[in-house]
C-alpha cells in the first residue's frame, strides 16, 4: 500500500535521510525504530508532505504522491499523528475531532460527520464524556488518545504515528499500544509506527525497520528483529537487563 524507494532528504546541506526504502503492506503494523536524530520523524514528515524530498519516490496505492501538498495526501487517506500530539489546546475535544474530518467534509456530508463522530466516541468513550472540555485541560495520555481519535476522523487507510508513547507513564503506554492494536484489528488500518520505545513497539508490530543516522540498518519480521543480537544490544538494552523477558 505504501512504498518508499531511495528517499533522500536534506536540511540545508545536512543529509538527513540517505536512500531510505521501506514498504507497508495493507493491514499491517510496521515499526520504525531508531535513536534520537536517526531521521524517524523526518521520514514521517516527508511522507505527509511537510518536508519535500530531494530524491527518491513515494508510492501510495499505486500513485506517486511525493509531489503532492499535505492536504492532497490527507485527502488520499494518509494521516499523521505528530510527535507532541499537535492537538488544538484552546479548542474543545469535540472541535478537535470535527477538524479531523476537514479533508472530506462538505455541507452535504454533515450527517456522515455525526456518524463518524459517534463511531469514534464508541471506540474511545472517555472522549465522549469530556467532549465539551478544552483539549488543553486533558492529561497527557488523554491528549494522545484525542490525537489518535482525531486522526481517525479523517477516515485514513494509512496511519502514521510519531512517538505515541512519548512522555507517558508505563501503564498508559500499555493502554495506547492496546488501542493501536485494536485499530489494526477492527478498522483494518495500516500503521507505520515510529518509536524509541523499541520493546513495546516490537510487541505489537508485524515487521520492523531499524533506522540509524538516516540509513535503514536492519529490516525484517518483528520477532526476527527483536532476536537480532545487534538490535538487542543497541535498542533493547539486553546487556543491562539480560534476564528481563521480552
Amino acid at each position, binding site marked *: 500500500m505504501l512504498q518508499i524507494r531511495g528517499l533522500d532528504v536534506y536540511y540545508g546541506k545536512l543529509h538527513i535521510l540517505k536512500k531510505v526504502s521501506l514498504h507497508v503492506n495493507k493491514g499491517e503494523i510496521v515499526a520504525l525504530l531508531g535513536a534520537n536524530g536517526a531521521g524517524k520523524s523526518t521520514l514521517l514528515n516527508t511522507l505527509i508532505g*511537510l518536508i519535500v524530498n530531494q530524491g527518491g519516490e513515494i508510492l501510495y496505492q499505486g500513485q506517486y504522491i511525493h509531489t503532492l501538498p*499535505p492536504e492532497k495526501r*490527507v485527502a488520499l487517506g494518509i494521516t499523521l499523528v505528530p510527535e507532541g500530539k*499537535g492537538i*488544538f489546546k*484552546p*479548542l474543545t475535544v469535540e472541535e478537535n475531532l470535527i*477538524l479531523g474530518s476537514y479533508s472530506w467534509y462538505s455541507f452535504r456530508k454533515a450527517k456522515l460527520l455525526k456518524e463518524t463522530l459517534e463511531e469514534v466516541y464508541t471506540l474511545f468513550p472517555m472522549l465522549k464524556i469530556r467532549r465539551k472540555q478544552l483539549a*488543553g485541560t486533558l492529561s497527557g495520555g488523554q491528549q494522545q488518545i484525542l490525537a489518535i481519535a482525531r486522526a481517525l476522523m*479523517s477516515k485514513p487507510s494509512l496511519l502514521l504515528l510519531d512517538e505515541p508513547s512519548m512522555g507517558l507513564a508505563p501503564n498508559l503506554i500499555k493502554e495506547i499500544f492496546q488501542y493501536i492494536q485494536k485499530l489494526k484489528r477492527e478498522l483494518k488500518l495500516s500503521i507505520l509506527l515510529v518509536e524509541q520505545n523499541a520493546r513495546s513497539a516490537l510487541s505489537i508490530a508485524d515487521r520492523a525497520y531499524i533506522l540509524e543516522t538516516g540509513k535503514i540498518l536492519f529490516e525484517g519480521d518483528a520477532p526476527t528483529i527483536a532476536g537480532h543480537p545487534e538490535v538487542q544490544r543497541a535498542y533493547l538494552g539486553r546487556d543491562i537487563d539480560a534476564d528481563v523477558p521480552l
Partner: protein
Amino acid sequence: MELFLQYFFSGLTVGAIYALIALSFNIIYNTTSILNLAQGEFVVLGGLVMWFFLEKLKLPYGTSFLLSLSIGGLVGLAMERLTIRPVLKTADPLLLILITIAFSILLRGVLMFLFGKEPYGYPPLSEGEPIVLWGAVLQRQVIWIFIFVILIMIFLYVFFNQTMFGRAMKACAIDRVSAKLMGIKTTQMVMVSFILSGIFASLAGILITPITFVEYDKGPLLTIKGFTSAILGGLGSNWGVMAGGFLLGILESLTAGYIHSGLKDVLALLILLTMLLFKPAGLFQTAEQARLRKL
C-alpha cells in the same frame, strides 16, 4: 449628566469604528501573525468608493453598499496575492509588516490620484431627525453602526464556532503545522483572512463617512487608532479587540470633552505606549492566554 451621556454616545460611535478596524487587524494577525498596517487605507477606500457609486454613478444605496464591500474584499485579495503570498513562506514577520506599510502608501497614492484631496461625504443610511435619549442627541447613523457591529459579532461567533471553514481558520491560527496535518490548506486561510479583513475595514469606512467625512489621507491615523484598540483589548481575541475599540473611543471622547480636544490623539498614542510597555497582552488576557487562546 446630559453632557457626559453625549460624550459617551459619541465615544461609542467612534469606538464602534475602531472596533471594526481592530477586528480587521485581528483576523489577519491570527492567521499570519503579521500586522496589516494598511488597514486605515482600507477604511478610507470603503468611504471613497461608496461615494463614487452612490453620488457619482447614482446607484441605489444597497447596491453601492454591497459593491463597496466587494471592492474592499477584492483589494484585500489583491494585496494578499500580489504582495504577501509570494514571500509569506520565506520572509520574516517584520519584513511582511514593512510590505504592508509600502502597500498602504501605494493605496493612499492611488486614492489621491483617483479622488483628489477634498473630503467626501454622502447621506446616512436612513434620513430623519436625530434621536434624543435622556437629553443626549444620537444620530440615526449611529444606531445603524451599532446594528452592524452586533451583526458582525453574531457572524463571527457563528462563523468561527459553527462552520467547518471558521474552525479551520481557528485551527490555522492556533497551530499552523497541525492544521496542515488535518488537510487544511493554510494559504487559502490566509487569503480568506485578507478578504474578510478588507471587507470589515471598508464597512467601517462606509458607515463612518456620513458622520465625519473622509479624505484620502485619513488612513494612517485610523490605523494607529485601530492598532491601539487591538493592543488595548489584547491582539488575538476577537471579543477583546472589540471591547478595546469601544473603550478607546469612549476614553478619547471623554478626554476631548472634559479636558481638551487636542489631547484626543495624544491619548491614543499614550495608551499604546503604556500598554506595550506594561501589558502587551492586553487588558483582558494574561501573556500566557495570549499565547494560547486566539480568537
